[in-house]
């Protein structure tokens, strides 16, 4: 078993009356179940339970796995999503995501006679991949709508994360409109264009 503990702390704004308070989201802490290749998250989030967080982190990592570049877990996609459930999502979205997780367990039980989190990695990947295909092939069902919405926000959070944007420059200094790959690499390495 590998202990997983992210150093990641996010802040979110909670409005209490008119006062704005900065609240730190809990650190995503968990252990890896090596047999199932599953990161089991032990803390509840601010919105999702620990079990929900485990399922969601797994789905996000299946969608965007670790490879040569960071995966969804390294990009802290689910802790960010959890915080955004309080600051961004409306009640309908919250319900949609929770029901999607219920539905996913139902599908797991119907297909494999057990809960999603009890499945081995290959079965979980197969299940999410199947759901992905179905959700885009037939877009009318509630399941499709919820899944596509979850996927969209997971991708959004991932592609706006620091690990997914290693060459991002907050202050480029200037703009160059016609550079070679070698020049681009040099600018990226020094984090500035000028």
């Amino acid at each position, binding site marked *: 078993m590998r202990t997983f503990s992210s150093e990641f702390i996010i802040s*979110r704004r909670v409005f209490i009356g008119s006062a704005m308070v900065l609240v730190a989201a809990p650190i995503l802490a968990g252990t890896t179940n090596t047999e199932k290749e599953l990161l089991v998250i032990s803390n509840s989030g601010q919105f999702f339970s620990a079990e929900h967080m485990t399922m969601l982190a797994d789905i996000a990592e299946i969608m965007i796995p670790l490879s040569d570049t960071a995966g969804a877990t390294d990009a802290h996609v689910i802790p960010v999503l959890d915080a955004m459930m309080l600051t961004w999502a*409306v009640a309908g979205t919250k319900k949609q995501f929770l029901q999607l997780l219920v539905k996913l367990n139902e599908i797991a039980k119907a297909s494999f006679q057990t809960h999603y989190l009890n499945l081995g990695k290959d079965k979980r990947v197969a299940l999410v*991949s199947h759901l992905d295909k179905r959700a885009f092939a037939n877009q009318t069902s509630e399941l499709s709508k919820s899944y596509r919405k979850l996927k969209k926000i997971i991708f959004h959070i991932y592609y706006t*994360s620091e690990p997914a944007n290693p060459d991002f420059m907050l202050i480029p*200094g200037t*703009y160059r409109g016609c550079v070679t790959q070698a020049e681009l690499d040099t600018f990226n390495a020094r984090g500035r264009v000028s």
Partner: protein
Amino acid sequence: MAQEYDVIVVGSGITGGWAAKEFTEKGFKTLVIERGRNVEHRGSEYTDMQAPWQIENRNLVPEDFDEQGRYQLIKQKGYFKGATKQFFADDKEHPYSYPDARPFKWVRSYQLGGRSVTWGRQSLRWGPKDFVANKKDGNGVPWPIGYEDLAPWYDYVESFIGVSANRDGLEDLPDGVFQKPWEMSCAEKVIAKNLRKAYSDRRLIIGRAANITEPTAEQMKLGRGQCQARAYCKRGCTFGGYFSSLSATLPAANNTGNLTLITNAIVERVDYDEKLGRASGVSIIDTLSKEKRSYKARVVFLCASALGSVQILLNSKSATFPNGIANSSGVVGRYIMDHFSGVLADGIVPGLDDKFATGRRPIATYIPNYRHENKDGVEFVRGYGFQATAQHRTKTPTHANKAGIGVDVKEVANQPGPWKFRAIMYGEMLPYFDNVASLHPTKTDQWGIPQLHIDARVRDNERKMIRQAAKDIGEILDVGGCVDINVNTTPEDRHIAIGDRIHEMGGACMGNDPNTSVLNKWAQAHDVDNLFVTDGACMSSCATQNPSLTYMAITVRAADYAAKLMQKGSL
């Protein structure tokens, strides 16, 4: 007793900031009244120092805006994001009215600095032909000024705000006082070169940006620094790299010690002294307490944005002016204009696969209007230009909205794609008497002020332009060297929302004849000597160029004139 000032300036946006600077620097005690809240330059509302992962909700606006029906008119716009939402007015909180069949888009920024905080900074002079167009083709009211009247004031404004641009030597888009231009991308350069070879009248030029590339001593003294190519301007700029009231004119005004600034105060009306036949000042409503107050001044400058000023004029009723102050002609609210689009085109610029762009240029490229003359047998008057860009290579899309997950889809996402050139038409809408803003007879806002009802639409001339512009841009992209060209036009029967280009203007046009216009050549009301309107309301036609630079030039020219009269004691 109402407090007394030399000048009252209504609004602190692009034009109000300028009026404040000019009068305070000339030694006049000036009161600026702003309906929105105070915003500190470099204060906590600026989000420009946040990386994408640091922005609240990853730059998404909260979903409940939709549920509550807030910001419905701008919710789909690229400029309305989590990091910029604080700088746009909510149409639910600040309602206005339009006919159901003809929605009007009134994009506003109600805070200190107005839309100077959120504007796109494209700063283009009008050319000599733009000021004679009304007279030439008989539409609208002839301009009482020409290019030569404004030219020195354009110089003056450009020197202060800082405009980075190329000296293009175009007769219809005169050069000015410029700082170093931004570079074109290799794809844009290819198109520019091909157009130069093929046409005598069509050019692709780099945009002219109110983003400073070579800060002057005057700019640095105000704490402004060189633009850092972040293109986060609409979030406010900590460097003061772009011109806004907050970074430039208001600090300059404040330095004089002659500025008094009031925020959260809506000017409800200009008060008129029947005995003296002059404006005596303004009445305001405190947005928070709803308390009413009056302020007095020798001169009133309305700079509340075109439609904001029209609303104030119409609402300023008196025995002499039962239809609103300065409205003996009945022309207040008439000739509402905006630039209009209707054509969007794109094409791939092939063959530059080993080239890239880096940094974020704060301005696009531009194809200036080449249709001042009625050539090629076209059946419309006036013309159009195109705002265009191929600033960066495209990126391959992610699979966020399509089937596919896993390593394979991740590896192919966000990879450098081809160079794509995109162009959007900006047409000159004619000044139509029947495109009108009036006070709604029954609807009011939360402060009891009658809502503005705006009924404006494009007509036959504009539809003909769209047809021709679609043909032209297809050809321009082809000649420019693009492949896979797409040209999309707005269907003839679909309403084009006026205001969508955010260059709304007119409503208190300038002219020589008091019977057909509201303001004289100094943007001074024909009917009321000490009342000036120098925002977009004063425009008699709309040309094709982004208008704010012209509003600024008109404002400083009018302020100079008013100040001289005040010094002589005749105002």
